[in-house]
């Protein structure tokens, strides 16, 4: 449409020569008003409709514009043809054969239908042109600047005001010219916004050119038909009074022509930009794989990307990381014997961490690599290094010499680095998951272990009992329990060698054995002998349990005591006002695993009196250390505490011990579990 502006004067005069005839006796003003209404209406409609469409794909946008163009052309000719069909039907009723002469509109038609059809023509054209402009606008505004928006808004204002030209108001010629020149200039300014072209691939560019050429053709056909096609009785086909349509038509034509030219000039550079795009995408893809825990897929991706980004002819990737058990192997276009050669090379190179171009010269390498040399002249070697250890080797090969440039090598290096970072992150994630899981399991183990200890200790007229238990870890290896059978009250305190979860499981076994055997009315010796044998079966060699066992007969006012390798119990004899140790001979559980155990254990029998105190404890309290010293809490401190506080009740005796222990260790946690059990007879 550029010629319209260039030869404006000439054309203007031409357009005035074209007379306008009216079938209806409407004043020209009404025609002008209707046409302006159609222009504005259809334009505003498409503007709002296409503004909302958010798709951005150049080819989809252009395809839409093209489809609209074809549709517009189709409807345009249909509108031309409908009166003929209408007349044909009419004619057909009276004459046998309708004649083509009807097209010349010799015979009067239905004037109302004719009028409406004629008015639909500008609607169809403006709908198509407007829609195309709105679609182009998305291209124009690709990476838009502030000025693009200003030009665009100005153009819309010009278009709006150009609608007044539809009314024939004796407007002076220069007014049209001013509008057309300013509007044309804005169109030119907007038409040079072609930033989107740089982001298209070769194929997309070729497609775009095809679409744009067709769009151009459609537009020219439509405009040509409108302005020169027929002697319309209804339409104002004057150029000046149609400045609106002229401008939007000019815009569609100019933008598509500029785009075609720019696309053609940009074709040669598109391979480079495509390459860059692929690289960028590859990086993004690698980064996205962060959430992927499948190593196999990660390595496969690396291999694929290395192949694509360097256009190599042969490749070889071997991942072998015994530490994490990553194994991956892939080759591309490589003969079997060469694969073997390269594997050999990987082994020989061992921990070589340097990426390098390999020149597999006969002089330096003997003739080891002659097979590879026959197939490939350039070989690049890239070690795959995770954190600071090599986990694999990557070889890339090309058939011609000097096949790799600095840029490619850097690229491969960054890909590998990115992938290794991904793997590292995946590993960290897995570790976190693992440690969270372990914490949860320990919490469960702790809850279970708390249930192994008796909820309530006996309260009766014969004696009172209090207990203290503190585990050094989440779960511990100390245990105490109580059972009452007939008039016998049985108590046990035990310590499993080792600490933590393992020990806790053995504690559970110990509880099972204790609770089961208690009801069999066994003597102390029998109980210990059988318990040792049952427990030992479950234990690994080197694991043992020490325990002290107490059985109180309240009828006879006697108790029997024995210890299986456990710390001697402290016994305060009130009648004699004397502290003594119950340190019978006794072997820990789990050392001798048969009946011979009975020979290694002794039971002591005692008559008790009111005020007698028994203190059971585990070695955790003996070995509790000063915060910054080496001295242990030790046996004497406990003994002295009993001597001093023997008259208190069991709860208070415990409190006194714990109080002193806390002062001694300054609140520092013990390395071992600490358990105390105090019995006082009434």
């Amino acid at each position, binding site marked *: 449409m550029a010629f319209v502006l260039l030869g404006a004067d000439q054309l203007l005069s031409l357009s005035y020569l074209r007379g306008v005839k009216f079938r209806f006796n409407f004043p020209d003003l009404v025609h002008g008003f209707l046409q302006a209404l159609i222009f504005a209406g259809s334009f505003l409609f498409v503007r709002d409709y296409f503004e909302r469409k958010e798709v951005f794909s150049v080819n989809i946008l252009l395809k839409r514009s093209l489809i609209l163009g074809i549709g517009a052309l189709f409807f345009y000719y249909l509108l031309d043809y409908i009166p003929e069909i209408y007349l044909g039907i009419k004619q057909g009723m009276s004459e046998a054969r309708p004649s083509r002469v009807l097209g010349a509109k010799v015979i009067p038609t239905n004037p109302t239908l004719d009028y409406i059809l004629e008015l639909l023509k500008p609607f169809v054209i403006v709908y198509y042109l407007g829609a195309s402009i709105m679609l182009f606008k998305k291209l124009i505004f690709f990476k838009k600047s502030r000025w693009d928006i200003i030009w665009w808004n100005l153009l819309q204002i010009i278009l709006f005001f150009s609608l007044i030209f539809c009314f024939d108001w004796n407007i002076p010629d220069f007014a049209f010219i001013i509008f057309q020149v300013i509007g044309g200039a804005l169109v030119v300014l907007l038409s040079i916004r072609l930033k989107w072209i740089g982001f298209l691939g070769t194929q997309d560019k070729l497609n775009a050119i095809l679409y744009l050429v067709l769009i151009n053709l459609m537009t020219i056909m439509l405009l040509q038909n409108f302005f020169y096609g027929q002697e319309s009785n209804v339409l104002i086909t004057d150029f000046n009074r149609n400045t609106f349509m002229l401008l939007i038509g000019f815009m569609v034509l100019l933008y598509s022509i500029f785009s075609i030219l720019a696309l053609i000039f940009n074709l040669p550079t598109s391979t480079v930009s495509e390459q860059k795009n692929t690289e960028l995408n590859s990086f993004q893809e690698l980064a996205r794989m962060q959430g992927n825990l499948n190593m196999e897929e990660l390595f496969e991706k690396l291999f694929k990307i290395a192949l694509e980004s360097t256009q190599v002819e042969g490749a070889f990737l071997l991942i072998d990381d015994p530490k994490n058990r990553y194994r991956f192997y892939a080759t591309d276009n490589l003969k079997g014997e060469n694969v073997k050669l390269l594997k050999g090379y990987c082994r020989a190179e061992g921990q070589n961490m340097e990426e390098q171009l390999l020149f597999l010269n006969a002089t330096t390498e003997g003739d080891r690599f002659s097979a590879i040399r026959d197939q490939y002249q350039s070989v690049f070697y890239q070690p795959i290094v995770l954190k600071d250890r090599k986990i694999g080797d990557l070889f890339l090969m090309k058939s011609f010499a000097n096949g790799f440039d600095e840029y490619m090598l850097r690229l491969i290096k960054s890909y590998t680095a990115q992938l290794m970072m991904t793997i590292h992150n995946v590993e960290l994630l897995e570790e976190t998951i693992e440690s969270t899981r372990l914490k949860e399991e320990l919490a469960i183990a702790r809850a279970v272990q708390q249930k192994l200890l008796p909820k309530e200790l006996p309260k009766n007229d014969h004696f009172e009992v209090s207990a203290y238990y503190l585990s050094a870890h989440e779960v511990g290896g100390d245990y105490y329990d109580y059972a009452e059978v007939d008039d016998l009250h049985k108590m046990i305190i035990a310590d499993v*060698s080792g600490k933590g979860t393992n020990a806790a499981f053995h504690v559970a076994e110990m509880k099972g054995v204790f609770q089961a055997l208690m009801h069999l009315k066994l003597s102390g010796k029998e109980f210990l002998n059988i318990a040792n044998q049952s427990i030992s079966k479950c234990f690994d060699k080197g694991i043992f349990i020490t325990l002290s066992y107490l059985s109180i007969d309240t009828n006879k006012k006697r108790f029997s005591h024995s210890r*299986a390798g456990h710390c001697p119990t402290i016994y305060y004899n009130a009648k004699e006002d004397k502290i003594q140790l119950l340190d019978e001979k006794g*072997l820990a559980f789990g050392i001798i695993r048969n009946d011979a155990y009975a020979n290694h254990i002794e039971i002591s029998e005692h008559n008790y009196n009111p005020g007698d105190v028994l203190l059971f404890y585990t070695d955790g309290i003996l070995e509790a250390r000063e915060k910054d010293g080496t001295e242990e809490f030790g046996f004497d401190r406990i003994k002295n505490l009993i001597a001093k506080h023997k008259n208190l009740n069991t709860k208070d005796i415990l409190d006194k011990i714990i109080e002193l222990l806390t002062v001694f260790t300054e609140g520092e946690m013990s390395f071992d579990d600490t358990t105390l059990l105090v019995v006082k007879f009434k």
Partner: protein
Amino acid sequence: MEVTKVIEASIVKLEINGELDASTTIEMDTVLKSLLETGSVKIIFDCTNLSYISSAGVGVFISFVDDFKEKGGNFGFYNMQENVHQVFTMLGLDSILSIVAGEEEAKAMF
């Protein structure tokens, strides 16, 4: 902890230096395992410089003593410090393991 191995005729003398606790038992475990494999089963332990032993430390001797006895050997401990000796007696191990006063008595076991 350090273990020094001295081979005297058919008897292997192991001098234990330092503390034998949960963290150092693995070392002792390795030493005893290799001795068992090579068939050197008559072992005497010089405990002069064994300053501390935990229950896990004791465990390592217990776990091996039967295997050594089966092959006609034994363990003999001598020159134990008082605190270490106490741990053995408390556990009742003095009736299972041979704990003697000096090197000569230990050698005399075999």
